[in-house]
């Protein structure tokens, strides 16, 4: 078992149901009964007692909610995340337990309706474990395993697995045994499986003036390890896979990528190599190779080392997910490069016009996690679906609006939309609050 690090200071806790499932066939009384037995499972194994007490002051408030429900942890519709609960504490929300109302909640103790829905009792026992101070367990037999494992049998007969019983007992003590009652068997503790915490964060320091993200005109854009990096002058913005901007404020490129020349003014292109995951920066007639955020010995290299003609400046570079090849662009020409072979494919350069619908002089190109390819220039971008070489209709669209959380004028305030996941531009939520 694993503890969350917080615990209720009392052993008699109150609970109430604030809202019931809308679409489920479970009657309200049955929902309350299942929740009662789910709490009782923890009470049977410990000194805790539970009392249903209608009203907002109850320690454990149960809700069935959809999507955004004002706790900062939105639900995601059917499947995936099912429920969550807040650990014990002094905050009003501590102990509250929320179920995704877009799930089909059922009570199926004999597991006869596989695929028909999610067993409310099994999930409730798990979530109440959090509400009482337990964290997720990697023990397969534990009810605190994070993955839904189906029904756990009749609610009124349910007993916690030994690991979970011991976990709750170490927080609140054992229940007083009735005369003649046998104490439960004790499990053998296993080695905890918890990694080291990340290193301490550095203190904040003032930043020099930074470019305006809403003006776009990025120098380079790259998909690196599933995140998109937008480079402009000596700064960059970073977008997570779920389309969240890590911050509205850009970071300083040189404080992140150690080894770029101190006097560079802008980066022409960046891409992550498909064969070894190294990251390549193009500046002028040279390129720098990075392992993660540190430059490799021997950098920079002349661009001619790639087999490109002397005098070429790589303005855009990306790996096309359709064939795994790397493409280098300069103005109205492009080259196809094989990172594994380390040379330009025969028959190149070719004219940019083969990529229908985009102008010459691109800022940069990325393959995104929706399988599409995005071409950027100035304040606009074009989308190429899958392996298509023709821009999708309806493009170009505004890069500041769809990627940088800018609306209207180039310097307008951001208006984050709903959290991403659709893979379509315009979705997502900025991590920065203001």
């Amino acid at each position, binding site marked *: 078992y694993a503890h969350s690090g*917080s615990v209720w200071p009392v052993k008699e806790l109150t609970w109430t149901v604030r809202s019931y499932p809308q679409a489920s066939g479970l009657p309200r009384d049955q929902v309350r009964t299942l929740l009662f037995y789910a709490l009782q499972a923890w009470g049977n194994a410990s000194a805790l007692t539970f009392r249903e007490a209608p009203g907002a002051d109850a320690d454990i408030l149960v809700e069935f909610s959809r999507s955004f429900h004002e706790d900062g942890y939105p639900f995601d519709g059917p499947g995936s995340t099912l429920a969550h609960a807040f650990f014990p*504490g002094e905050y009003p929300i501590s102990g509250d337990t929320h179920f995704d109302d877009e799930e089909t909640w059922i009570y199926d103790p004999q597991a006869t309706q596989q695929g028909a829905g999610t067993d409310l009792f099994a999930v409730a026992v798990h979530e109440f474990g959090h509400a009482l101070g337990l964290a997720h367990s990697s023990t397969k037999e534990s009810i605190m395993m994070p993955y839904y494992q189906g029904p756990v049998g009749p609610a009124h007969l349910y007993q916690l697995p030994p690991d979970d019983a011991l976990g709750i007992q170490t927080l609140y003590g054992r229940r007083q045994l009735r005369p003649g009652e046998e104490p439960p068997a004790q499990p053998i503790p296993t080695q905890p499986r918890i990694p080291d915490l990340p290193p301490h964060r550095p203190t904040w320091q003032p930043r020099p003036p930074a470019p305006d993200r809403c003006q776009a005109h990025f120098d380079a854009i790259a998909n690196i390890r599933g995140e998109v990096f937008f480079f402009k002058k000596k700064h960059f913005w970073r977008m997570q896979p779920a389309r969240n901007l890590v911050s509205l404020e850009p970071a300083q490129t040189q404080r992140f990528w150690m080894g770029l020349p101190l006097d560079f003014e802008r980066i022409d292109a960046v891409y992550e190599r498909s064969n070894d995951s190294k990251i390549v920066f193009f500046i002028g007639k040279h390129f720098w190779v990075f392992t993660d955020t540190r430059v490799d010995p021997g950098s920079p290299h002349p661009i001619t080392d790639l087999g490109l003609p002397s005098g070429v400046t790589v303005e855009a570079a990306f790996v096309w997910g359709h064939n795994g090849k790397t493409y280098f662009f300069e103005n109205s020409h492009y080259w196809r490069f094989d990172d594994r072979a380390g040379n330009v494919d025969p028959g190149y350069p070719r004219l940019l016009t083969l990529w229908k619908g985009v102008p010459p002089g691109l800022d940069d190109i990325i393959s995104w996690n929706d399988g599409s390819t995005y071409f950027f220039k100035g304040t606009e971008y074009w989308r190429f679906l899958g392996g298509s070489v023709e821009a999708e209709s309806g493009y170009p669209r505004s890069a500041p609006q769809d990627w940088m959380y800018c609306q209207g004028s180039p310097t307008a305030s951001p208006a984050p939309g709903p959290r991403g996941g659709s893979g379509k531009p315009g979705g997502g939520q900025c991590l920065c609050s203001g």
Partner: protein
Amino acid sequence: AGRPSTQRLSKGVDWLTRYGYLPPPDPMQARLQTEEGLQDAVRMMQKFAGLQETGILDDRTLAMMDQPRCSLPDIIGTSELMRRRKR
């Protein structure tokens, strides 16, 4: 060879971050996930889920990431998640 596709990688990083196997990005500290860090996170996730610990975002690992589950992270301590919130 063996490198996961962009889609797999994006999905994997997103999932691993959401459930505490990778630290969330900090606007005040620029840090890129290293290849080794990603592999370690995948390995930890596989260990937690009872899968073979390969460190690779293989089909079984991605399928496990698609399983219905609790939305609390598996590894707590990287954030104050589910602790400091106002009702």
